[in-house]
């Protein structure tokens, strides 16, 4: 296991490097001059040039890239062009907010999705299956920001049960933190639960057809034990793979949900960066999300190896 971990971590390094390179040069395609965006339309040429020199974007791209990379490696992602803050500091404040949303909904989605998926598989073709299948197709189609709006309006504004938007001051207790998280997590988690339920159902149906399930039954094990011991573990393998994709999708989705609930997370930061061509902010944002996805995938690889002895290194 340790060896697997080491190898995955080592493989992640060039991957992150390539992501950084790709995004850095992709973002440069835009002909708009960031200095002009920052200074406004009425800035004169001289002050624009000054600004460019100050930002360092008058240098050749390769030099800029190399510079950025050198400081990024030691954790310095540069300075925000617009407010002069350290990007690293800004991100540090926002990461916990987004991650608690993402992992909150992922864990709930895994729980709910797997339970319903397995139930549907066991009742294949009968009403619980049909209900769950329909519900999951609907859940998959709900735009998270829309359901967020609706929830914020009804549950937050009308019923006043839960905060409709993120508190303006940092939540001071765990309870308030969780309270503020509930609606965004629900909005975010619905489609993930639906996707996981569907995957769990289909892989469970597949596994129940396998010879080893027949063997387990032939040993005289109770059906419950056959399902819980012999089927679920194998059916979990594709679900774990899907969970990897879902993490990525949830991070993407959190951008919209944060927008709706006014959550001071990574997503808002990223959208601002794009709308204002804020290069260091955008790069920082992309690198952080990529890092989260890569770390999650390493964790999933390890659990994959635990579930499936065949992929364990000998």
């Amino acid at each position, binding site marked *: 296991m340790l*060896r*697997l971990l*080491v*190898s995955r971590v*080592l*493989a992640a390094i060039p991957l992150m490097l390539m992501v950084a390179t790709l995004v850095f040069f992709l973002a440069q395609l835009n002909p708009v001059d960031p200095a002009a965006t920052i200074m406004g339309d009425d800035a004169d040429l001289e002050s624009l040039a000054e600004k460019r020199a100050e930002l360092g974007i008058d240098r050749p791209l390769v030099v800029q890239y190399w510079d950025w990379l050198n400081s990024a490696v030691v954790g310095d992602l540069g300075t925000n062009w617009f407010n002069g803050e350290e990007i690293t500091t800004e991100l540090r404040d926002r990461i916990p907010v987004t991650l608690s949303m993402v992992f909150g909904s992922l864990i709930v989605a895994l729980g709910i999705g797997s339970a319903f998926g397995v139930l549907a598989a066991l009742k294949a073709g009968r009403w619980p299956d049909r209900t769950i299948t329909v519900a999951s197709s609907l859940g998959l189609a709900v735009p998270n920001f829309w359901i967020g709006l609706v929830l914020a309006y009804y549950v937050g504004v009308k019923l006043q049960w839960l905060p409709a938007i993120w508190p303006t001051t940092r939540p001071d207790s765990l309870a308030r933190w969780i309270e503020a998280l509930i609606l965004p997590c629900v909005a975010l988690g619905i489609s993930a639960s639906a996707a996981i339920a569907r995957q769990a159902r289909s892989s469970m149906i597949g596994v129940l057809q396998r010879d080893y399930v027949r063997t387990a039954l032939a040993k005289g094990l109770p059906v419950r034990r056959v399902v819980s011991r012999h089927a679920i573990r194998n059916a979990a393998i594709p679900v774990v793979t899907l969970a990897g994709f879902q993490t990525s999708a949830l991070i993407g989705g959190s951008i919209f949900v944060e927008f709706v609930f006014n959550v001071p997370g990574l997503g808002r930061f990223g959208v601002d960066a794009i709308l204002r061509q804020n290069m260091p902010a955008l790069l920082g944002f992309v690198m952080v999300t990529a890092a989260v996805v890569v770390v999650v995938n390493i964790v999933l690889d390890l659990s994959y190896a635990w579930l499936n002895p065949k992929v364990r*290194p000998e």
Partner: protein
Amino acid sequence: MSEPLLHIDDVTIVFPGGRGALPWQKLPDVRAVQHVSLQIDAGDTLGLVGESGSGKTTLGRAVLRFLRPESGSIRLGDFDVTGFGRQVPTEYRKTVQVVFQDPVGSLNPSMVVGAIIAEPLRIHFGMDSGTARERAGELLEQVGLQRHHLDRYPHEFSGGQRQRIAVARALATEPDLLVLDEPVSALDVSTQSQVINLLERLQRETGAAYLLIAHDLAVVRHTCHRIAVMYHSRIVELGDSDDICERPAHPYTELLLASIPDPDPAVQHVKSQRRRELAQGVAGASGRAPTDSCPFAERCPHVMDVCRESFPEPVPTATGGTVWCHLHTSGPMLGGQPVSELAAGTSTAQVSPPAADG
């Protein structure tokens, strides 16, 4: 007999090892075929027999030029097969055809039978679709199916019928050599003989040579004039079918023969007794094929020290074949006599004692 049709000369085939769990780890290469030499005369059938994983398929694929040997040469008629570049000449594809074991996977599920058989006709003879269809119909009838089957999809046929379709496609180019890779192994016993009879009749009609890959010596004996026995990447014995099947000179050949169950209980009793004496160790060949010892040494009841030190040199057998076994040049110095003459004296550790004695 003039020049043989197919010349396989000292061929070694290596699959590069994959990557290990760690990025810099490289798994060792797999030597699937080592120093194999074989010949097939025009219109003749050579049986290639051995257990799964022994390298039969790999050798067949090298003849088809689906892969390139590490060393050695393969020649067929005027073609220098090992000398081909990336593009295999169309003319060679016309000359050599193949039938695979898996009757389900070997026909494109999205094409009708007519299109499957017409494809080689259109490629090699440039037939228009009408002519190709006409000829495809003839070929179907030749393999015992009917013309109206042209418009059906492969999944609508049974295993034996699909093998007939595969044979029809292979014969479409009028090949000189047909590689038959376990063509009947996936079929029921009764259907097996139907396909074998068909292949024999077609050989009489077309004069094509066969390389018949199989694991069942009894089936091969009926079909082949000569048999090569392969074990874990090596040819261990080569000779005329009847000699191989009655006077085997290699311990592995004898074990194979003893393993064919016979429906006559009296014969079967003798056979299983002999098999129990011969079977050493409990498994088939496993791990990587050794480069410098007899690959059968782990299971051989007659194993000697020299067997673990070098792979034996070829020795001509009393019946005109060739055997690769140290028993013929060391120890009992059999000198090409059948190994079955030897009492399995060295066999002691029997894993399954004969039931009859118990």
